[in-house]
Protein backbone atom coordinates (compact mmCIF):
# COMPACT_ATOMS: atom_id res chain seq x y z
CA UNK A 1 0.00 0.00 0.00
CA UNK A 2 2.73 2.42 1.01
CA UNK A 3 4.87 1.46 -1.93
CA UNK A 4 1.85 2.05 -4.19
CA UNK A 5 1.37 5.51 -2.69
CA UNK A 6 5.07 6.20 -2.98
CA UNK A 7 5.03 5.02 -6.58
CA UNK A 8 1.99 7.13 -7.49
CA UNK A 9 3.30 10.32 -5.93
CA UNK A 10 6.74 9.76 -7.42
CA UNK A 11 5.25 9.22 -10.85
CA UNK A 12 3.01 12.27 -10.43
CA UNK A 13 6.02 14.43 -9.63
CA UNK A 14 7.97 12.99 -12.56
CA UNK A 15 5.00 13.39 -14.89
CA UNK A 16 4.56 17.01 -13.86
CA UNK A 17 8.14 18.04 -14.62
CA UNK A 18 8.71 15.86 -17.67
CA UNK A 19 5.76 17.57 -19.32
CA UNK A 20 6.57 20.92 -17.79
CA UNK A 21 5.06 23.09 -20.55
CA UNK A 22 1.68 21.39 -20.35
CA UNK A 23 1.72 21.20 -16.55
CA UNK A 24 2.62 24.87 -16.20
CA UNK A 25 -0.09 25.84 -18.70
CA UNK A 26 -2.60 23.89 -16.62
CA UNK A 27 -1.29 25.53 -13.45
CA UNK A 28 -1.56 28.99 -15.03
CA UNK A 29 -5.15 28.33 -16.06
CA UNK A 30 -5.88 27.00 -12.62
CA UNK A 31 -4.38 30.12 -11.03
CA UNK A 32 -6.37 32.51 -13.22
CA UNK A 33 -9.59 30.62 -12.55
CA UNK A 34 -8.96 30.53 -8.83
CA UNK A 35 -8.25 34.28 -8.85
CA UNK A 36 -11.54 34.86 -10.63
CA UNK A 37 -13.39 32.65 -8.20
CA UNK A 38 -11.80 34.08 -5.06
CA UNK A 39 -12.15 37.65 -6.36
CA UNK A 40 -15.86 37.20 -6.74
CA UNK A 41 -16.02 35.44 -3.42
CA UNK A 42 -14.39 38.41 -1.69
CA UNK A 43 -16.72 40.87 -3.43
CA UNK A 44 -19.66 38.70 -2.43
CA UNK A 45 -18.47 38.53 1.18
CA UNK A 46 -18.02 42.31 1.37
CA UNK A 47 -21.39 42.77 -0.22
CA UNK A 48 -23.13 40.48 2.26
CA UNK A 49 -21.40 42.25 5.13
CA UNK A 50 -22.72 45.56 3.81
CA UNK A 51 -26.22 44.14 3.62
CA UNK A 52 -26.05 42.87 7.20
CA UNK A 53 -24.80 46.26 8.27
CA UNK A 54 -27.76 47.98 6.64
CA UNK A 55 -30.15 45.48 8.08
CA UNK A 56 -28.76 45.95 11.55
CA UNK A 57 -29.82 49.57 11.27
CA UNK A 58 -33.45 48.54 11.15
CA UNK A 59 -35.00 49.24 14.49
CA UNK A 60 -38.20 50.41 16.13
CA UNK A 61 -38.56 53.63 18.04
CA UNK A 62 -41.39 53.69 20.59
CA UNK A 63 -42.28 57.15 21.91
CA UNK A 64 -43.43 57.10 25.49
CA UNK A 65 -46.33 59.04 27.02
CA UNK A 66 -45.22 61.98 29.14
CA UNK A 67 -45.44 61.23 32.83
CA UNK A 68 -44.57 57.56 32.51
CA UNK A 69 -42.86 56.34 35.65
CA UNK A 70 -39.40 54.83 35.69
CA UNK A 71 -40.89 51.62 37.03
CA UNK A 72 -43.23 51.28 34.04
CA UNK A 73 -40.37 51.97 31.66
CA UNK A 74 -38.13 49.42 33.32
CA UNK A 75 -40.94 46.88 33.22
CA UNK A 76 -41.43 47.37 29.46
CA UNK A 77 -37.68 47.27 28.88
CA UNK A 78 -37.39 43.96 30.70
CA UNK A 79 -40.24 42.42 28.78
CA UNK A 80 -38.78 43.65 25.44
CA UNK A 81 -35.37 42.28 26.26
CA UNK A 82 -36.94 38.90 26.98
CA UNK A 83 -38.22 38.70 23.39
CA UNK A 84 -35.98 36.64 21.07
CA UNK A 85 -36.33 39.12 18.18
CA UNK A 86 -34.86 41.97 20.25
CA UNK A 87 -31.09 42.39 20.33
CA UNK A 88 -30.92 45.57 22.41
CA UNK A 89 -33.11 48.21 24.01
CA UNK A 90 -31.93 51.75 24.72
CA UNK A 91 -33.84 54.29 26.80
CA UNK A 92 -33.65 57.87 25.54
CA UNK A 93 -34.93 60.41 28.08
CA UNK A 94 -36.64 63.69 27.16
CA UNK A 95 -33.44 65.61 27.93
CA UNK A 96 -31.31 63.21 25.94
CA UNK A 97 -33.72 63.50 23.00
CA UNK A 98 -33.48 67.30 23.10
CA UNK A 99 -29.69 67.16 23.31
CA UNK A 100 -29.54 64.88 20.27
CA UNK A 101 -31.91 67.13 18.37
CA UNK A 102 -29.75 70.17 19.10
CA UNK A 103 -26.61 68.37 18.04
CA UNK A 104 -28.30 67.30 14.84
CA UNK A 105 -29.37 70.90 14.06
CA UNK A 106 -25.90 72.24 14.86
CA UNK A 107 -24.33 69.68 12.56
CA UNK A 108 -26.59 70.81 9.75
CA UNK A 109 -25.66 74.46 10.50
CA UNK A 110 -29.22 75.46 11.34
CA UNK A 111 -30.18 77.94 14.00
CA UNK A 112 -31.20 76.36 17.26
CA UNK A 113 -34.72 77.54 18.01
CA UNK A 114 -35.38 75.30 20.98
CA UNK A 115 -34.46 77.88 23.64
CA UNK A 116 -37.60 79.77 22.60
CA UNK A 117 -39.80 76.84 23.54
CA UNK A 118 -41.63 76.93 26.82
CA UNK A 119 -41.01 73.30 27.48
CA UNK A 120 -39.29 70.32 25.90
CA UNK A 121 -41.74 68.99 23.28
CA UNK A 122 -39.78 65.83 22.56
CA UNK A 123 -41.00 62.59 24.05
CA UNK A 124 -38.82 60.09 25.87
CA UNK A 125 -38.45 56.91 23.85
CA UNK A 126 -37.22 53.34 23.73
CA UNK A 127 -34.98 52.48 20.77
CA UNK A 128 -35.30 48.79 20.01
CA UNK A 129 -32.78 47.00 17.81
CA UNK A 130 -34.03 43.92 15.98
CA UNK A 131 -32.28 40.69 15.09
CA UNK A 132 -33.58 40.90 11.54
CA UNK A 133 -35.85 43.24 9.59
CA UNK A 134 -38.53 40.56 9.31
CA UNK A 135 -39.18 40.84 13.06
CA UNK A 136 -40.41 44.39 12.65
CA UNK A 137 -44.14 43.62 12.51
CA UNK A 138 -44.17 41.47 15.67
CA UNK A 139 -42.39 44.09 17.76
CA UNK A 140 -44.45 46.96 16.37
CA UNK A 141 -47.70 45.13 17.20
CA UNK A 142 -46.42 44.36 20.69
CA UNK A 143 -45.47 47.99 21.35
CA UNK A 144 -48.73 49.39 19.97
CA UNK A 145 -50.61 47.29 22.54
CA UNK A 146 -48.72 48.92 25.42
CA UNK A 147 -50.58 51.80 27.19
CA UNK A 148 -47.44 53.77 27.96
CA UNK A 149 -46.44 53.84 24.28
CA UNK A 150 -47.59 57.05 22.65
CA UNK A 151 -49.60 56.55 19.49
CA UNK A 152 -48.87 53.99 16.83
CA UNK A 153 -45.21 53.13 16.43
CA UNK A 154 -43.72 54.91 13.44
CA UNK A 155 -44.98 53.17 10.36
CA UNK A 156 -41.89 52.22 8.39
CA UNK A 157 -43.38 48.92 7.28
CA UNK A 158 -43.22 49.74 3.60
CA UNK A 159 -39.63 50.75 3.87
CA UNK A 160 -38.57 47.60 5.68
CA UNK A 161 -40.59 45.40 3.36
CA UNK A 162 -38.80 46.92 0.42
CA UNK A 163 -35.44 46.54 2.13
CA UNK A 164 -36.16 42.91 2.86
CA UNK A 165 -37.10 42.14 -0.74
CA UNK A 166 -34.08 44.01 -2.12
CA UNK A 167 -31.57 42.34 0.17
CA UNK A 168 -32.96 38.86 -0.41
CA UNK A 169 -32.85 39.48 -4.16
CA UNK A 170 -29.27 40.69 -3.97
CA UNK A 171 -28.29 37.73 -1.83
CA UNK A 172 -29.82 35.22 -4.24
CA UNK A 173 -28.29 37.03 -7.19
CA UNK A 174 -24.85 37.00 -5.57
CA UNK A 175 -25.01 33.30 -4.82
CA UNK A 176 -26.27 32.60 -8.33
CA UNK A 177 -23.46 34.64 -9.88
CA UNK A 178 -20.93 32.80 -7.78
CA UNK A 179 -22.44 29.47 -8.83
CA UNK A 180 -22.25 30.41 -12.52
CA UNK A 181 -18.61 31.48 -12.15
CA UNK A 182 -17.91 28.29 -10.23
CA UNK A 183 -19.39 26.23 -13.08
CA UNK A 184 -17.33 28.09 -15.69
CA UNK A 185 -14.18 27.57 -13.66
CA UNK A 186 -15.02 23.88 -13.29
CA UNK A 187 -15.37 23.35 -17.03
CA UNK A 188 -12.29 25.31 -18.00
CA UNK A 189 -10.06 23.65 -15.43
CA UNK A 190 -11.33 20.15 -16.23
CA UNK A 191 -10.80 20.76 -19.93
CA UNK A 192 -7.28 22.02 -19.37
CA UNK A 193 -6.41 18.95 -17.35
CA UNK A 194 -8.07 16.77 -19.97
CA UNK A 195 -5.74 18.31 -22.55
CA UNK A 196 -2.75 17.60 -20.32
CA UNK A 197 -3.86 13.97 -19.96
CA UNK A 198 -4.56 13.73 -23.68
CA UNK A 199 -0.95 14.71 -24.31
CA UNK A 200 0.03 11.61 -22.37
CA UNK A 201 -2.32 9.23 -24.17
CA UNK A 202 0.66 7.27 -25.45
CA UNK A 203 1.92 6.64 -21.95
CA UNK A 204 -1.52 5.51 -20.77
CA UNK A 205 -1.78 3.26 -23.82
CA UNK A 206 1.52 1.58 -22.98
CA UNK A 207 0.50 1.18 -19.36
CA UNK A 208 -2.73 -0.51 -20.39
CA UNK A 209 -0.96 -2.83 -22.81
CA UNK A 210 1.66 -4.04 -20.37
CA UNK A 211 -1.08 -4.92 -17.93
CA UNK A 212 -1.14 -2.04 -15.46
CA UNK A 213 -4.24 -2.15 -13.28
CA UNK A 214 -6.65 0.78 -13.39
CA UNK A 215 -5.45 2.03 -10.01
CA UNK A 216 -1.84 2.18 -11.22
CA UNK A 217 -2.89 4.18 -14.24
CA UNK A 218 -5.32 6.47 -12.47
CA UNK A 219 -3.68 7.52 -9.21
CA UNK A 220 -0.49 9.08 -10.56
CA UNK A 221 -2.66 11.33 -12.71
CA UNK A 222 -4.96 12.12 -9.82
CA UNK A 223 -1.99 13.10 -7.67
CA UNK A 224 -0.63 15.16 -10.53
CA UNK A 225 -4.00 16.92 -10.79
CA UNK A 226 -3.89 17.60 -7.06
CA UNK A 227 -0.36 18.96 -7.47
CA UNK A 228 -1.51 21.34 -10.24
CA UNK A 229 -4.40 22.43 -8.01
CA UNK A 230 -2.19 22.96 -4.97
CA UNK A 231 0.41 24.90 -6.92
CA UNK A 232 -2.31 27.05 -8.51
CA UNK A 233 -3.81 27.67 -5.06
CA UNK A 234 -0.48 28.70 -3.54
CA UNK A 235 0.20 31.15 -6.39
CA UNK A 236 -3.34 32.52 -6.12
CA UNK A 237 -3.00 33.08 -2.39
CA UNK A 238 0.35 34.77 -2.96
CA UNK A 239 -1.20 37.14 -5.50
CA UNK A 240 -4.14 37.87 -3.20
CA UNK A 241 -1.82 38.52 -0.28
CA UNK A 242 0.23 40.90 -2.40
CA UNK A 243 -2.88 42.69 -3.60
CA UNK A 244 -4.55 42.83 -0.19
CA UNK A 245 -2.50 45.69 1.24
CA UNK A 246 -2.86 48.32 -1.53
CA UNK A 247 -6.43 47.26 -2.17
CA UNK A 248 -7.52 47.66 1.43
CA UNK A 249 -5.87 51.08 1.60
CA UNK A 250 -7.76 52.10 -1.49
CA UNK A 251 -11.01 50.80 -0.08
CA UNK A 252 -10.45 51.93 3.46
CA UNK A 253 -12.77 54.88 3.13
CA UNK A 254 -15.58 52.69 1.92
CA UNK A 255 -15.09 49.67 4.05
CA UNK A 256 -14.13 51.26 7.34
CA UNK A 257 -17.77 51.77 8.29
CA UNK A 258 -18.49 48.12 7.66
CA UNK A 259 -17.98 45.58 10.40
CA UNK A 260 -16.06 43.22 8.12
CA UNK A 261 -14.07 40.57 9.90
CA UNK A 262 -10.89 40.43 7.81
CA UNK A 263 -9.63 37.40 9.70
CA UNK A 264 -12.63 35.24 8.93
CA UNK A 265 -12.76 36.35 5.28
CA UNK A 266 -9.13 35.50 4.66
CA UNK A 267 -9.60 32.15 6.36
CA UNK A 268 -12.63 31.42 4.18
CA UNK A 269 -10.79 32.50 1.03
CA UNK A 270 -7.78 30.33 1.88
CA UNK A 271 -10.03 27.34 2.37
CA UNK A 272 -11.97 28.12 -0.80
CA UNK A 273 -8.86 28.52 -2.95
CA UNK A 274 -6.98 25.48 -1.65
CA UNK A 275 -10.10 23.32 -1.52
CA UNK A 276 -11.45 24.15 -4.95
CA UNK A 277 -7.97 24.12 -6.50
CA UNK A 278 -7.14 20.63 -5.30
CA UNK A 279 -10.70 19.43 -5.73
CA UNK A 280 -10.84 20.61 -9.34
CA UNK A 281 -7.43 19.11 -10.06
CA UNK A 282 -8.45 15.75 -8.66
CA UNK A 283 -11.88 15.67 -10.29
CA UNK A 284 -10.44 16.86 -13.60
CA UNK A 285 -7.75 14.18 -13.63
CA UNK A 286 -10.14 11.46 -12.48
CA UNK A 287 -12.65 12.24 -15.21
CA UNK A 288 -10.00 12.60 -17.91
CA UNK A 289 -8.26 9.31 -17.15
CA UNK A 290 -11.59 7.50 -16.92
CA UNK A 291 -12.06 7.96 -20.65
CA UNK A 292 -9.05 5.76 -21.21
CA UNK A 293 -9.92 3.11 -18.68
CA UNK A 294 -13.42 2.19 -19.80
CA UNK A 295 -13.15 0.00 -22.82
Amino acid sequence: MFSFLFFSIGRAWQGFWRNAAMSLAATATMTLMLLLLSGFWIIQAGFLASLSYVEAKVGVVADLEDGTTNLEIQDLETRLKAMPQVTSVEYVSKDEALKRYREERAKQGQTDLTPYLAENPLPASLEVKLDKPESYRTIADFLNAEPIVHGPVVNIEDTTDRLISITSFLRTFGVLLLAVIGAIVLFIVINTIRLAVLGRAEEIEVMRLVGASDAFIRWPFVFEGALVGLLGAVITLGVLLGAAEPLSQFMVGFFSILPINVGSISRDVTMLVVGSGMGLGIVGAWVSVRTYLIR
Partner: protein
Amino acid sequence: MEPSLILQRNPDRSASSVDQRGWPGDDTAGGNGRAPADTRRPVLVLNDVTKTYPNGRDALKDVDLVVPEGDFVFLVGASGAGKSTLMKLLIRDELATIGSVILDGDDLSRLSRRKVPIVRRKIGIVFQDFKLLPSKTVRENIAFALEVTGTPRRKIRPAVERVLKLVGLTAQAEQYPHQLSGGEQQRTAIARALVHDPRIVIADEPTGNLDPLISWEILQLLLRINELGVTVLMATHDSDLVTALRKRVVALEEGRIIRDEVGGGYHRAG
Protein backbone atom coordinates in the same frame (compact mmCIF):
# COMPACT_ATOMS: atom_id res chain seq x y z
CA MET B 1 7.55 -30.94 -37.16
CA GLU B 2 4.14 -31.88 -35.85
CA PRO B 3 1.04 -31.50 -37.95
CA SER B 4 -0.83 -28.26 -38.01
CA LEU B 5 -3.13 -27.62 -35.12
CA ILE B 6 -5.14 -25.08 -36.95
CA LEU B 7 -8.45 -26.57 -37.82
CA GLN B 8 -10.63 -25.10 -40.43
CA ARG B 9 -14.19 -24.82 -39.26
CA ASN B 10 -16.64 -27.15 -40.97
CA PRO B 11 -19.15 -25.20 -42.97
CA ASP B 12 -22.12 -27.06 -41.47
CA ARG B 13 -21.27 -25.90 -37.93
CA SER B 14 -22.46 -29.23 -36.50
CA ALA B 15 -19.16 -30.74 -35.55
CA SER B 16 -16.15 -28.57 -35.64
CA SER B 17 -13.06 -30.65 -35.36
CA VAL B 18 -11.92 -28.50 -32.46
CA ASP B 19 -14.80 -29.78 -30.38
CA GLN B 20 -14.16 -33.38 -31.34
CA ARG B 21 -10.67 -33.11 -30.08
CA GLY B 22 -11.74 -31.77 -26.79
CA TRP B 23 -10.09 -28.42 -26.84
CA PRO B 24 -11.11 -25.75 -24.34
CA GLY B 25 -14.43 -24.37 -25.32
CA ASP B 26 -15.90 -27.81 -25.53
CA ASP B 27 -18.31 -27.84 -22.63
CA THR B 28 -17.87 -31.51 -21.83
CA ALA B 29 -14.12 -31.57 -21.97
CA GLY B 30 -13.51 -28.53 -19.80
CA GLY B 31 -10.67 -26.09 -20.10
CA ASN B 32 -7.67 -28.38 -20.21
CA GLY B 33 -8.49 -30.93 -22.86
CA ARG B 34 -5.59 -32.34 -24.77
CA ALA B 35 -5.30 -33.24 -28.37
CA PRO B 36 -4.17 -36.73 -29.09
CA ALA B 37 -2.07 -35.47 -31.95
CA ASP B 38 -0.18 -32.96 -29.84
CA THR B 39 0.33 -33.21 -26.13
CA ARG B 40 1.52 -29.63 -25.75
CA ARG B 41 -0.72 -27.31 -23.81
CA PRO B 42 -2.62 -24.81 -25.95
CA VAL B 43 -1.68 -21.28 -24.98
CA LEU B 44 -4.23 -19.68 -27.24
CA VAL B 45 -7.55 -20.99 -28.50
CA LEU B 46 -10.03 -19.18 -30.71
CA ASN B 47 -13.28 -21.05 -30.87
CA ASP B 48 -15.62 -20.20 -33.73
CA VAL B 49 -14.92 -16.50 -33.33
CA THR B 50 -16.86 -13.85 -35.22
CA LYS B 51 -16.24 -10.17 -34.66
CA THR B 52 -18.81 -7.76 -36.01
CA TYR B 53 -18.12 -4.06 -35.62
CA PRO B 54 -20.95 -1.65 -34.81
CA ASN B 55 -21.04 -0.57 -38.46
CA GLY B 56 -22.14 -4.11 -39.34
CA ARG B 57 -18.89 -5.21 -40.95
CA ASP B 58 -17.65 -8.69 -40.06
CA ALA B 59 -13.94 -8.23 -39.41
CA LEU B 60 -13.57 -11.89 -38.47
CA LYS B 61 -15.86 -14.73 -39.44
CA ASP B 62 -15.98 -18.22 -37.87
CA VAL B 63 -12.31 -18.30 -36.93
CA ASP B 64 -10.93 -21.38 -35.20
CA LEU B 65 -7.32 -21.31 -34.15
CA VAL B 66 -5.28 -23.28 -31.65
CA VAL B 67 -1.74 -22.28 -30.79
CA PRO B 68 0.12 -24.75 -28.57
CA GLU B 69 2.78 -23.63 -26.16
CA GLY B 70 6.13 -22.96 -27.78
CA ASP B 71 4.76 -22.51 -31.29
CA PHE B 72 5.95 -19.88 -33.74
CA VAL B 73 3.10 -18.68 -35.94
CA PHE B 74 3.09 -16.20 -38.80
CA LEU B 75 -0.20 -14.47 -39.34
CA VAL B 76 -0.40 -13.21 -42.91
CA GLY B 77 -2.96 -11.47 -45.05
CA ALA B 78 -3.65 -8.26 -46.89
CA SER B 79 -4.60 -5.06 -45.07
CA GLY B 80 -8.16 -5.35 -43.84
CA ALA B 81 -8.06 -9.14 -43.78
CA GLY B 82 -8.65 -9.12 -40.03
CA LYS B 83 -5.13 -9.39 -38.62
CA SER B 84 -5.43 -6.28 -36.49
CA THR B 85 -8.84 -7.29 -35.21
CA LEU B 86 -7.47 -10.68 -34.26
CA MET B 87 -4.63 -9.01 -32.37
CA LYS B 88 -7.09 -6.74 -30.57
CA LEU B 89 -9.16 -9.73 -29.50
CA LEU B 90 -6.08 -11.44 -28.08
CA ILE B 91 -5.18 -8.49 -25.87
CA ARG B 92 -8.85 -7.98 -25.06
CA ASP B 93 -8.99 -4.53 -26.53
CA GLU B 94 -12.08 -5.82 -28.29
CA LEU B 95 -14.43 -8.64 -27.38
CA ALA B 96 -15.58 -11.37 -29.78
CA THR B 97 -19.17 -10.91 -30.92
CA ILE B 98 -19.64 -14.69 -31.16
CA GLY B 99 -17.37 -17.48 -29.93
CA SER B 100 -14.66 -17.50 -27.32
CA VAL B 101 -11.03 -16.48 -27.08
CA ILE B 102 -9.13 -18.46 -24.47
CA LEU B 103 -5.70 -17.30 -23.43
CA ASP B 104 -3.73 -19.58 -21.12
CA GLY B 105 -6.96 -21.03 -19.76
CA ASP B 106 -8.80 -17.72 -19.28
CA ASP B 107 -11.90 -17.07 -21.37
CA LEU B 108 -11.41 -13.40 -22.25
CA SER B 109 -15.09 -12.70 -22.83
CA ARG B 110 -15.96 -13.88 -19.32
CA LEU B 111 -13.12 -12.02 -17.67
CA SER B 112 -14.10 -9.29 -15.25
CA ARG B 113 -12.64 -5.89 -15.99
CA ARG B 114 -10.46 -6.11 -12.92
CA LYS B 115 -8.75 -9.27 -14.13
CA VAL B 116 -7.90 -7.93 -17.57
CA PRO B 117 -4.56 -6.43 -16.45
CA ILE B 118 -3.51 -9.74 -14.93
CA VAL B 119 -4.17 -11.59 -18.17
CA ARG B 120 -2.38 -8.90 -20.17
CA ARG B 121 0.75 -9.59 -18.13
CA LYS B 122 0.83 -13.04 -19.74
CA ILE B 123 1.20 -11.36 -23.12
CA GLY B 124 4.10 -9.37 -24.46
CA ILE B 125 3.08 -7.00 -27.21
CA VAL B 126 5.33 -5.57 -29.91
CA PHE B 127 4.09 -2.96 -32.38
CA GLN B 128 5.15 -1.71 -35.76
CA ASP B 129 5.57 1.81 -34.32
CA PHE B 130 7.42 0.57 -31.21
CA LYS B 131 5.32 2.70 -28.79
CA LEU B 132 8.36 3.71 -26.73
CA LEU B 133 8.05 6.66 -24.38
CA PRO B 134 10.33 9.40 -25.74
CA SER B 135 11.08 10.96 -22.36
CA LYS B 136 12.44 7.73 -20.90
CA THR B 137 15.73 5.97 -21.51
CA VAL B 138 15.91 2.42 -22.85
CA ARG B 139 16.30 1.10 -19.32
CA GLU B 140 13.42 3.22 -18.01
CA ASN B 141 11.16 2.19 -20.89
CA ILE B 142 11.74 -1.46 -20.07
CA ALA B 143 11.47 -0.98 -16.30
CA PHE B 144 8.24 0.97 -16.85
CA ALA B 145 6.38 -2.23 -17.75
CA LEU B 146 7.26 -3.68 -14.35
CA GLU B 147 6.85 -0.47 -12.33
CA VAL B 148 3.27 0.08 -13.45
CA THR B 149 2.32 -3.47 -12.57
CA GLY B 150 3.50 -3.01 -9.02
CA THR B 151 6.67 -5.10 -9.15
CA PRO B 152 8.95 -4.48 -6.16
CA ARG B 153 11.95 -2.32 -6.98
CA ARG B 154 14.53 -4.92 -6.04
CA LYS B 155 13.10 -7.34 -8.61
CA ILE B 156 12.97 -4.79 -11.41
CA ARG B 157 16.68 -4.18 -11.83
CA PRO B 158 17.80 -7.78 -12.40
CA ALA B 159 14.85 -8.45 -14.71
CA VAL B 160 15.71 -5.40 -16.81
CA GLU B 161 19.40 -6.37 -16.96
CA ARG B 162 18.43 -9.84 -18.10
CA VAL B 163 16.31 -8.70 -21.06
CA LEU B 164 18.77 -5.95 -21.99
CA LYS B 165 21.38 -8.66 -22.37
CA LEU B 166 18.96 -10.89 -24.28
CA VAL B 167 18.24 -8.23 -26.91
CA GLY B 168 21.84 -6.96 -26.86
CA LEU B 169 21.19 -3.40 -25.72
CA THR B 170 23.18 -3.32 -22.49
CA ALA B 171 25.48 -0.66 -23.94
CA GLN B 172 22.59 1.55 -25.03
CA ALA B 173 20.66 1.28 -21.77
CA GLU B 174 20.99 4.95 -20.85
CA GLN B 175 20.11 6.36 -24.27
CA TYR B 176 16.78 7.85 -25.25
CA PRO B 177 14.69 6.38 -28.09
CA HIS B 178 15.51 9.24 -30.49
CA GLN B 179 19.20 8.41 -30.15
CA LEU B 180 18.62 4.84 -31.33
CA SER B 181 18.27 3.30 -34.78
CA GLY B 182 14.95 1.77 -35.80
CA GLY B 183 16.20 -1.73 -35.13
CA GLU B 184 17.44 -0.77 -31.68
CA GLN B 185 14.12 0.86 -30.91
CA GLN B 186 12.29 -2.30 -31.87
CA ARG B 187 14.68 -4.37 -29.78
CA THR B 188 13.88 -2.09 -26.84
CA ALA B 189 10.18 -2.70 -27.45
CA ILE B 190 10.79 -6.45 -27.58
CA ALA B 191 12.75 -6.26 -24.33
CA ARG B 192 9.85 -4.40 -22.73
CA ALA B 193 7.45 -7.06 -24.00
CA LEU B 194 9.60 -9.77 -22.48
CA VAL B 195 10.52 -8.28 -19.15
CA HIS B 196 7.53 -9.67 -17.25
CA ASP B 197 8.05 -13.22 -18.54
CA PRO B 198 5.03 -13.53 -20.78
CA ARG B 199 3.60 -16.86 -21.99
CA ILE B 200 3.14 -15.51 -25.47
CA VAL B 201 4.61 -12.65 -27.48
CA ILE B 202 2.30 -11.02 -29.97
CA ALA B 203 4.09 -8.96 -32.60
CA ASP B 204 2.00 -6.77 -34.89
CA GLU B 205 4.06 -6.04 -38.02
CA PRO B 206 7.25 -5.69 -35.96
CA THR B 207 9.40 -5.28 -39.07
CA GLY B 208 7.00 -3.00 -40.94
CA ASN B 209 9.12 0.10 -40.42
CA LEU B 210 12.52 -1.52 -40.81
CA ASP B 211 14.78 -2.23 -43.78
CA PRO B 212 15.30 -5.90 -44.80
CA LEU B 213 18.58 -6.46 -43.02
CA ILE B 214 17.31 -5.08 -39.72
CA SER B 215 14.04 -6.96 -40.18
CA TRP B 216 16.01 -10.15 -40.43
CA GLU B 217 17.82 -9.25 -37.20
CA ILE B 218 14.53 -8.67 -35.41
CA LEU B 219 13.17 -11.97 -36.68
CA GLN B 220 16.28 -13.78 -35.43
CA LEU B 221 15.67 -12.23 -32.05
CA LEU B 222 12.05 -13.40 -32.02
CA LEU B 223 13.20 -16.90 -33.01
CA ARG B 224 15.68 -16.95 -30.15
CA ILE B 225 12.93 -15.91 -27.76
CA ASN B 226 10.80 -18.71 -29.19
CA GLU B 227 13.60 -21.18 -28.56
CA LEU B 228 13.55 -20.12 -24.93
CA GLY B 229 10.02 -21.49 -24.78
CA VAL B 230 7.92 -18.39 -25.39
CA THR B 231 5.09 -18.77 -27.88
CA VAL B 232 5.34 -16.19 -30.66
CA LEU B 233 2.54 -14.94 -32.87
CA MET B 234 3.74 -12.53 -35.52
CA ALA B 235 1.54 -10.69 -37.96
CA THR B 236 3.44 -9.61 -41.03
CA HIS B 237 3.38 -8.47 -44.63
CA ASP B 238 6.95 -9.50 -45.25
CA SER B 239 6.68 -12.43 -47.66
CA ASP B 240 10.45 -12.97 -47.85
CA LEU B 241 10.76 -13.57 -44.13
CA VAL B 242 7.79 -15.92 -44.01
CA THR B 243 8.81 -17.94 -47.02
CA ALA B 244 12.43 -18.24 -45.89
CA LEU B 245 11.59 -19.48 -42.43
CA ARG B 246 9.16 -22.31 -43.20
CA LYS B 247 7.30 -21.94 -39.94
CA ARG B 248 3.59 -22.34 -39.39
CA VAL B 249 1.63 -19.84 -41.48
CA VAL B 250 -1.97 -18.80 -40.89
CA ALA B 251 -3.45 -16.80 -43.75
CA LEU B 252 -6.47 -14.57 -43.31
CA GLU B 253 -8.66 -13.27 -46.08
CA GLU B 254 -11.76 -11.19 -45.56
CA GLY B 255 -11.98 -12.28 -41.96
CA ARG B 256 -11.65 -16.01 -42.55
CA ILE B 257 -8.72 -18.36 -42.19
CA ILE B 258 -8.09 -19.54 -45.73
CA ARG B 259 -4.92 -21.47 -45.08
CA ASP B 260 -3.05 -22.91 -42.13
CA GLU B 261 0.01 -24.95 -42.81
CA VAL B 262 3.31 -25.71 -41.25
CA GLY B 263 6.36 -24.97 -43.35
CA GLY B 264 4.33 -22.91 -45.79
CA GLY B 265 5.39 -19.85 -47.68
CA TYR B 266 3.75 -16.48 -47.68
CA HIS B 267 1.70 -17.38 -50.71
CA ARG B 268 -0.30 -20.53 -51.22
CA ALA B 269 1.99 -23.23 -52.49
CA GLY B 270 1.33 -24.32 -56.04
